[in-house]
């Protein structure tokens, strides 16, 4: 192998033009999760977490979490009063709607990310891994061509006679994929350094944390062969999540396996946002031409067929 061919692989991976249907759909899914956070988890409680009435006031966070060092926080640019935080909440909701519907898609994505970043810096104690993942991929979505399809931006451009290229360099979408792989890599490395994952009892314990229980699944949680297999399946599929997922011939099998893992966790364990943040990110591995085939199929299935009457 030559260095030039390595560089060729690098260029192909990041820059060989691809369709933008996938990232367009991911934008909608990401926007829905942000709306869920804003409208379900924070609605009516924003001031409990952020602002003067917060459980943990900002000076304490600055001292003990920021270590008196600078952090990005949009809230600090404005007076620390109740109206400021109310306005910020509505800006979050509005920008999430704009992102979902694809109005000023890139700007909306960037604004959503900066607001998430500010919120996570103001109160880092109420966010789970799903929130953290949305923050991690936010800038990549903002830098992608996420407004090319299924967006008001695309409709407006069409009316103005502006045509967008069908295929573009997918490096920002690839960064979302790589970010997801980094998650599986770190969690895999940490898991194999612990005894419960290797001896097959991790799922036994995970399904018995009573503050997280959702629906019981005794077939998995109460039978040793089943929870042992589920534990080892988790390790194996997470290993594939940063290795085989980048091999064209294998990636859809890995994606299906990982979706099955996340859906299983979603059924048994109550961790809102978390599982769907990863399931939606797995969608970025679906190639645009396959999305197009799916859309064509859905379109033909939904179009009423002409009925022939015998005369």
């Amino acid at each position: 192998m030559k260095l030039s061919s390595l560089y060729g692989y690098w260029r192909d991976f990041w820059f060989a033009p691809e369709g933008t249907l996938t990232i367009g759909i991911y934008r909608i899914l990401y926007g829905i999760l942000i709306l869920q956070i804003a409208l379900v988890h924070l609605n009516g409680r924003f001031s409990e977490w952020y602002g003067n009435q917060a459980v943990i006031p900002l000076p304490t966070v600055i001292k003990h979490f920021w270590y008196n060092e600078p952090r990005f926080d949009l809230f600090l640019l404005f007076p620390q009063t109740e109206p400021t935080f109310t306005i910020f909440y509505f800006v979050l909701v509005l920008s999430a709607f704009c992102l979902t519907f694809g109005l000023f898609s890139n700007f909306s994505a960037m604004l959503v990310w900066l607001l998430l970043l500010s919120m996570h810096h103001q109160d880092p104690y109420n966010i789970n891994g799903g929130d953290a993942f949305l923050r991690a991929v936010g800038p990549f979505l903002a830098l992608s061509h996420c407004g090319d399809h299924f967006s008001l931006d695309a409709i407006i451009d069409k009316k103005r006679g502006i045509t967008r290229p069908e295929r573009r360099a997918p490096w920002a979408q690839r960064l979302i994929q790589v970010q997801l792989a980094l998650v599986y890599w770190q969690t895999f490395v940490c898991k194999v350094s612990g005894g419960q994952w290797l001896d097959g009892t991790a799922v036994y314990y995970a399904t018995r944390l009573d503050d997280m229980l959702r629906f019981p699944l005794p077939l998995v949680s109460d039978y040793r062969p089943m929870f042992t297999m589920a534990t080892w399946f988790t390790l194996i599929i997470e290993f594939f999540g940063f290795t085989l997922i980048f091999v064209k011939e294998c990636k859809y099998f890995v994606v299906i396996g990982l979706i099955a893992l996340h859906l299983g966790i979603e059924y048994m364990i109550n961790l809102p946002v978390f599982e769907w943040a990863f399931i939606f990110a797995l969608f970025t591995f679906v190639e645009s031409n396959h999305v197009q085939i799916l859309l064509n199929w859905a379109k033909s299935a939904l179009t009423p067929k002409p009925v022939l009457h015998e005369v």
Partner: protein
Amino acid sequence: MSEETLGKTSRREALTSLLIALYLSCQIAWLSLDSPLRTRIVEPFTQFWLFWGLDQNWRLFSPEIKNINFHTVAVITFEDGSKLNWELPRMKRLNYWERFRDEKYRKWCVDSLPWPDYKEFWPDFARYAGRKYYQPNNKPVSLSLLLYWIEIPKPEAKIVPVAKLPEHTKVNTVFYYRYKASDFAPEVIAKP
């Protein structure tokens, strides 16, 4: 191979490549297991990484999963000696919708509040609870945060079904806070 489909490398592409390579190198170093080498590598960019919220940690459920179940209760004692038990939102006692909606409370009350890593925030929590249950004629005097817990039975001996998990019967006092007059100063209490 690539030049056939992509043409020559543009300046913009080269710069993007450089930034991607730099970002990924830093992120991989950040996510690596703790070691003196890792510390030396991440030290120069830690400030920048934290400022932009690029720090990450995906150690959920690893390396070990908690082997206890627990919940927290704040006990507020008032001037007349009466006590108020405030059980912080306990997921087990909520319905499916409430559990879904109150995830941020679970994260705060269960994963953060009772643990020593977060002890700097305990006085603020006590003051918050004091304001929440403030009565002008019978002011809060002190707050104790209690942790009720129980071990999850080990699977080696006998598998206890999820439906028959034991109640949280052991208790520890996590911290005790004695309120000061300044905690209930008019400008503090006047806040809505």
